[in-house]
């Protein structure tokens, strides 16, 4: 099982701040497919947003789709901006 923490903008659509993903998921690409099915609004946010993935508190900056996931991983979706 994976735990997926959602950004505030998706939590209402998902009805929760976090999801437990029990489907077999081996990579972030496969996780994205699951999230598209389970969270209304995920696709439009994902297509447009500067969403990054953190796996077990490590931010993934490239080759994100192929990033392997294992049972027990905690994945977080984080919109990223710069600042001043």
């Amino acid at each position, binding site marked *: 099982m994976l735990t997926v923490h959602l950004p505030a903008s998706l939590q209402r659509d998902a009805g929760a701040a976090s999801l437990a993903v029990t489907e077999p998921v081996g990579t972030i690409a496969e996780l994205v497919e699951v999230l598209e099915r389970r969270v209304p609004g995920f696709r439009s*946010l994902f297509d447009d947003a500067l969403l*990054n993935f953190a796996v077990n508190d*490590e931010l993934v*900056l490239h080759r994100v789709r192929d990033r392997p996931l294992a049972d027990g991983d905690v994945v977080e979706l984080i919109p*990223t*901006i710069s*600042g*001043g």
Partner: protein
Amino acid sequence: MPIRDRVARLLAELPDAPQYPTQGATAFIDLERREVRQAYTPVSVVRALLAGRGANMFYLYRLLDESLAPLDPGVPLIFGSGVLTGIVPSAARGNATSWSPESGVLMDCNAGDYFPSFTKMNGYDHLVLYGRAPRWTLLHVKDGRIAFRDAAPYVGLDNLDLRERIEADFGGAWTRDLAMASITRAGERLVLTSAIMAGPKACYARGGPGAKMGALRLKAILVQGQTHDFETAQPYKGYNREIAQKLLATSVVKHALKTTGTPFLYKPSRLLGAMGTKNHQETTWTDALDASNIDPYRPGMAGCFRCPVNCRPLNDLHGDEADRYGRGDGPEYVTLGKFGPNVGIDRIESVIRLNNICNDLGLDTASTGSAIAWAMELFQRGIITARDTGGLELVWGDAALVERLIFMLSRREGFGDVLADGARAVEKGHYPPGALRYRMAVKGLMQSDPHDARILKAFALGLAVSTRGMDHLRNRVTLEINARINDDPAFKQRLYGGAVSAAPTSYEGKERAVRVCENVFGVGDAVGMCRFTTQLFNSPSLPGLDQFAAQIANVTGLAFEPAALDRVGLNIMGVERLINRRLGVGRQDDTLPERWFEEPITVGAYAGEKIDRAEFDAMLSRFYALSSLTEEGVPQDAWRRELEAALEGRA
């Protein structure tokens, strides 16, 4: 040649009437003699540099006498609003430019709130200030006229009290018909980390502008007047609506800027292992400072003139009503980083309180926080001791101590006098030369943001080549932190006009991305657009050169192709480098703090990363070549002659 002769020579060349619809005048204000003369920026200069930051560089280039010192009243302080400031949504910004007393190189600061827009509404694009006022002075700009008033009643007031007193004395209301650029006691005392306040939090910061204004004995510039629409070359409001829609439809605006503001970035930097901690000895810190922890203390958001984004978080600590620092404006990500991890503080309430204090005391939180962190590391290493600090133990994480140091700095009291000299503490004889090894500065300017750039090489190059010193707001390739863009090489290539490596740690092609960002951001400053809402800083889909070109044509009637605007961005950087060259800056100054070359990151997925000297040097050379700069980092001969011709009225 004395400043008055320089001004007279320049005035003789300048047109005395507007050169295009909406152009405001340039007021040359002699504070010593209490005289104002005005003229307009020539079209040839506008074609090369636009207004705002761009034309500010024209005025500085022409009026600078580098044989003086930065705080000499013969060195002008120049305010400039952008071509579209006050006219286009989110174009609320202006720049303040001079020779920096903090860094010793170019000073160029950008601020929003209402001052730049209201100045333009009063018919002024630029204010060129010089001469030391015989007594503390307040400039009062109203109905297009500039009056000199006695500022004696306001001397010694910090930001909160000053704003209250001015509102009571002059009538009107902030954000409706009053705006001001002013200094606090810190500026009066020439604190090198002091800012010029442009609102409750908004400020012209970086490089010691507060000290520069204080040296002219100018307490404030108060601008009064009703807002109004401009007479433009063509209708522009329809396109304004498109720009506003574009802003509001951008996900980063919808999901982060509008709701939380910039503290959002703390978490990604922390998770990346790139959060400057304890003066960058470490690079990650507690999740207790994640933006979500600010939520209970954020009663709402505020914004700048006619900006639909409203990205500025307000705060309320829900404490004692009488505590003047229990509520305020901010913090931004920079302040969160500088007064959180960088000084070892882990309580969000402490950071918010320190933010509110800095806003009142008129301090640049980046320079002030960095100066304190530097002192703390020197103390930790025994390079300075309690004998140097007047008995204070500079211990990481002591919020009460940091609060005390900030007050001491703003008044130049005790060890505060050392901190008030910011990055120049070695030069001023306060610290031994060995202290420079731990100074997180480039070109004499402490780092603006808390991000540790040993991992992302594009960030590192940007900090090294920024013309005002170590600052992320001049050219930060922020989208390097976006995995989806990194993983789409075709899109990334289109964005930057050539190949840029997907790997954040690679040096390949990063010069290209920095070049593109520096051009777009330079143009953004010259039109007055906020950096947060300029294309490439936070998103690829925000307004950029295409939208600026279209709206410049509507507003001014001046046609620019987007490619010509791109050239303007390059020109601005080129003139800034010509100015810096006169101030002794060369290739050796386009570098990074020693620590980043020598000490690797020790945590996270990128543990082991540091800056490789040879790779960095090669990247710098590629950046110079791509930017038409010589190996010394100044414009190549043909382009330099072209720039000089434009600057000297021979174009």
